[in-house]
């Protein structure tokens, strides 16, 4: 089969690789009908995440049709149409029973490695380093889904791939980011980053009833899409984020702040951004946490910071004293996808939201390597790429 494989920094190739096969009785093999490139794939593409090996199959946003199931998998049958969450879940461990699916205790087959690095393991993830299991990803014609009897979302035939594909990651990720804010009708929610997760966070915050949603980015087409979703926008290259947020909140700052940027914040005209760039250049820092610092500074005391943006390692000059004294609440983590998908699928079915709005490019799998670059460099007004194997 064909698959997009990682071969090193900024080196993704469409290779021919062996077809996957059932390895465990709970597995399923699916034929991928649609998959997408996620913003967090770019951290692998840019070489910021350790633990990748040459030949690893990329991709954790995908859906398709069940081709084969293991003998113990009674939940699925051949022909079922499913979206696959990016977090692999056993559905039985203590964390899964609590709904904390992204920290499933059993699905990471490299648990001992993750235990050493993180203290305790997190869930296995598709196509996302050997630290999270080294599972083959979904930017391929076929995928083996481990624990498939629990790691799936069945979708009806009357919705298109484009409407439900993002249930596997970015929609529930944006939704969880907003849910973690426990939005009140009086709240201003400020969202850094108008990439796909930011776009879904904007719509989620609007649907959950925020008084005002403010979105921060500098890419004009992303800001335009944010405004379409109901956000007031701030171009961080053209105006001061802090001043403008204070202006929009009567000088008090937003109650809720969402970081939909993560570890690769772009350099802005601020000293801390230059500092991060310099430290990263000499390998003294892994992440560029400008957005985190700015959120901590501008957030209203007793406010909440919600962090769906991916961070990878060690962050420097985090003003934690400021956060402590302001009494900020931090909520973060990978998304507990299955916790939200039933509800979100219902909302899609009811027409409350159509997630396909975010797709700007649809191409064949073989054009995946070039689309990584297009997406990373925000060329051709690219916001979200869907690949058709």
């Amino acid at each position, binding site marked *: 089969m064909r698959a997009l494989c990682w071969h090193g920094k900024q080196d993704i190739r469409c290779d021919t690789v062996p077809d996957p096969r059932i390895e465990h009785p709970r597995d399923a093999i699916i034929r991928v009908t649609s998959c997408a490139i996620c913003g967090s794939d770019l951290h692998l593409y840019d070489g910021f995440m350790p633990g990748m090996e040459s030949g690893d199959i990329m991709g954790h946003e995908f859906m398709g049709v069940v081709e084969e199931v293991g003998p113990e998998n009674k939940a699925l049958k051949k022909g079922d149409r499913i979206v696959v969450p990016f977090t692999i879940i056993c559905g039985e461990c203590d964390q899964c029973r609590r709904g904390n699916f992204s920290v499933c205790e059993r699905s990471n087959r490299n648990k001992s490695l993750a235990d050493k690095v993180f203290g305790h393991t997190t869930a296995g993830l598709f196509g996302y380093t050997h630290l999270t299991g080294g599972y083959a990803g979904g930017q391929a014609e076929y995928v083996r889904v481990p624990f498939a009897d629990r790691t799936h979302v069945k979708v009806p035939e009357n919705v298109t791939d484009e409407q439900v594909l993002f249930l596997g990651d970015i929609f529930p990720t944006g939704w969880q980011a907003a849910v973690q804010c426990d939005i*009140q009708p009086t709240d201003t929610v400020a969202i850094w980053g108008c990439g796909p997760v930011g776009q879904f966070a904007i719509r989620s915050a609007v649907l959950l*009833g925020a008084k005002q949603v403010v979105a921060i980015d500098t890419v004009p087409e992303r800001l335009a899409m944010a*405004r379409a979703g109901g956000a007031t926008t701030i171009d961080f290259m053209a105006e001061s984020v802090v001043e403008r947020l204070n202006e929009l909140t009567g000088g008090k700052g937003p109650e809720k702040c969402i970081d939909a940027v993560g570890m690769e914040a772009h350099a802005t*005209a*601020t000293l801390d951004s230059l500092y991060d760039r310099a430290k990263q250049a000499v390998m003294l820092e892994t992440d560029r946490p400008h957005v985190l610092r700015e959120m901590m500074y501008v957030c209203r005391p007793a406010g909440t910071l919600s962090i769906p943006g991916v961070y990878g390692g060690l962050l420097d000059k985090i003003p934690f004293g400021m956060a402590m004294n302001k009494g900020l*609440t931090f909520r973060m983590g990978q998304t507990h996808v299955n916790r939200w998908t039933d509800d979100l699928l219902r909302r899609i079915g009811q*027409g*409350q939201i159509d997630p396909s*709005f975010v797709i700007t490019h649809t191409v064949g799998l073989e054009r995946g390597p070039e689309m990584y*670059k297009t997406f990373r460099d925000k060329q051709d007004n690219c916001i979200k790429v869907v690949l058709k194997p």
Partner: protein
Amino acid sequence: MARRRNTPPEALAQGLGWFSIGLGLAELLAPHAVARNLGLRGNERLLATYGARELVTGIGILAARDPEPWIWGRVAGDALDIGTLATGLDGADDRRGGAGIAMVAVLGATVLDLLCASDLRARRQARAALPDYSRRSGLPRPPEAMRGAARDFEVPADMRTPEALRPWTSAA
């Protein structure tokens, strides 16, 4: 969609910014050594001034909201450098060879500066012709009409704001 090179102009601009800072520091902190190697003895003060210029330009490129004007500034600086180095080539100084090598390097840097500046300009012009994403709300009605449409959702207990931090009216 097709682009001429693999490096995005912003990344190239960043590289040129760091290069400017490095060169600027060398000229500012060791003007005598630089002058000796380039056959420009007697021009140490001028070289230190150029160093300050490089330093300011480098910081400008890295810190500016839009690096394009600063890259054009580098192009202007390149012209000055070429003129100054030409005097080194004319002289009888036994380090004339150094000036020749430096001239080639500056010409190379000038080409990079010009490519970067023209790419940044092209990017700016391309962005000016935006696709229309103003209808891509994903919502069936205008956002204002959809505000609160999902208020039937109950935030799970583990994600609710701690009671002590909730607005007094809702905590009461």
